């Protein structure tokens, strides 16, 4: 069954239709959130919150819009808000006495195979480089590279022109190439 048909069924009172939409998009949203937040637990919580927002917004959803575009828009906005909240929290934690000083323990180098270590290092470098990008560039890269959206779909999600999407992706790649120059 198509997304718009499930949306219509839900709007007519079929709660099960919503569950089907959740099942269909949970992986996409979960992975998308992870790309933004770089943390599995945070990504899961964010995905849950996003579907809750979708549930309450779905009654007002107009059938002429594409469900997935609307869902991606909610996902991007939610994740960016979460990142901003994190920044605020980390700024405030500087002024509180009992701040969380927990530092993740280093990986046991002796026990980890070299290939795995390199992969972990690469992953960390890519995550850090993407996180260092400006919000707009980061969103464009994540939606395109990791969510597999076309430039046209990104333009619809971010409500910008096609040429703006092209420019953002080009700028993002240029920046990423600079940030990751030691690895490539």
């Amino acid at each position, binding site marked *: 069954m198509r997304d718009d048909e499930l949306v219509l069924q839900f709007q007519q009172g079929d709660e099960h239709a919503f*569950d089907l939409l*959740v*099942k269909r998009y*949970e*992986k996409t949203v*979960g*992975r998308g959130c*992870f*790309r933004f937040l770089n943390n*599995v637990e945070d*990504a*899961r919580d964010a*995905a*849950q*919150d996003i*579907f*809750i927002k979708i*549930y309450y917004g779905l009654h007002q959803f107009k059938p002429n819009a594409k469900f997935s575009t609307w869902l991606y828009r909610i996902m991007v906005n939610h994740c960016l808000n979460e990142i901003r909240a994190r920044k605020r929290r980390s700024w405030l934690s500087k002024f509180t006495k009992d701040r969380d000083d927990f530092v993740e323990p280093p990986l046991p180098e002796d026990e980890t195979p070299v290939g795995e270590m390199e*992969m972990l290092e*690469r*992953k960390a470098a*890519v995550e850090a*480089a*993407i996180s260092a990008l400006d919000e707009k560039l980061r969103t464009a890269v994540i939606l*395109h*590279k*990791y969510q597999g959206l*076309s*430039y046209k779909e990104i333009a619809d999600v971010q409500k910008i022109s096609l040429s703006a999407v*092209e420019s953002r*992706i*080009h700028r993002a*790649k240029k920046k*990423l*190439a600079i940030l*990751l120059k030691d*690895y*490539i």
Partner: protein
Amino acid sequence: MKCKSIQKRLSAYIDGELGEDLAGEISRHLETCPYCGKELARLRQLYGFIDIDVSMTDDPHFVTRVRAGLQKRDQAHLNVGKLEWWIGRLLIPATLVVGLFIGTIIGKQVSRGLLPSSSANFEMSRDYIDRDVFSAVPSGSLVDNFLALNKKDE
């Protein structure tokens, strides 16, 4: 097209987001330009490098978690609704009753003379006359005459 313009569109070229004509033009340029060819290779390498899969295990209870979240939120809304009902029905009349009670007590205190009355306030204001602040008043002025009149009254 110049190399600079070509390089600006290389990402879209790799992504297959350009029209046939433009993509063909770039392909022809790349065949003859080693500089742009190098840039294309560099971009492809970057693409390969950042192509990392997310190691997120599937959550078999995700739908249940979402449903639980919805229920929790509904309950919270219900509680807020109840609170609003209590505020509307009880808090405003209760505030009025407490206000009336306090007003009555203050009124009684004033009538018994426990609080400074208006005559007492007048006496207090007259004490200021004796303060040094008036010592520099020039003789014969309006203020000087007023002070003299007050002293006569005492």
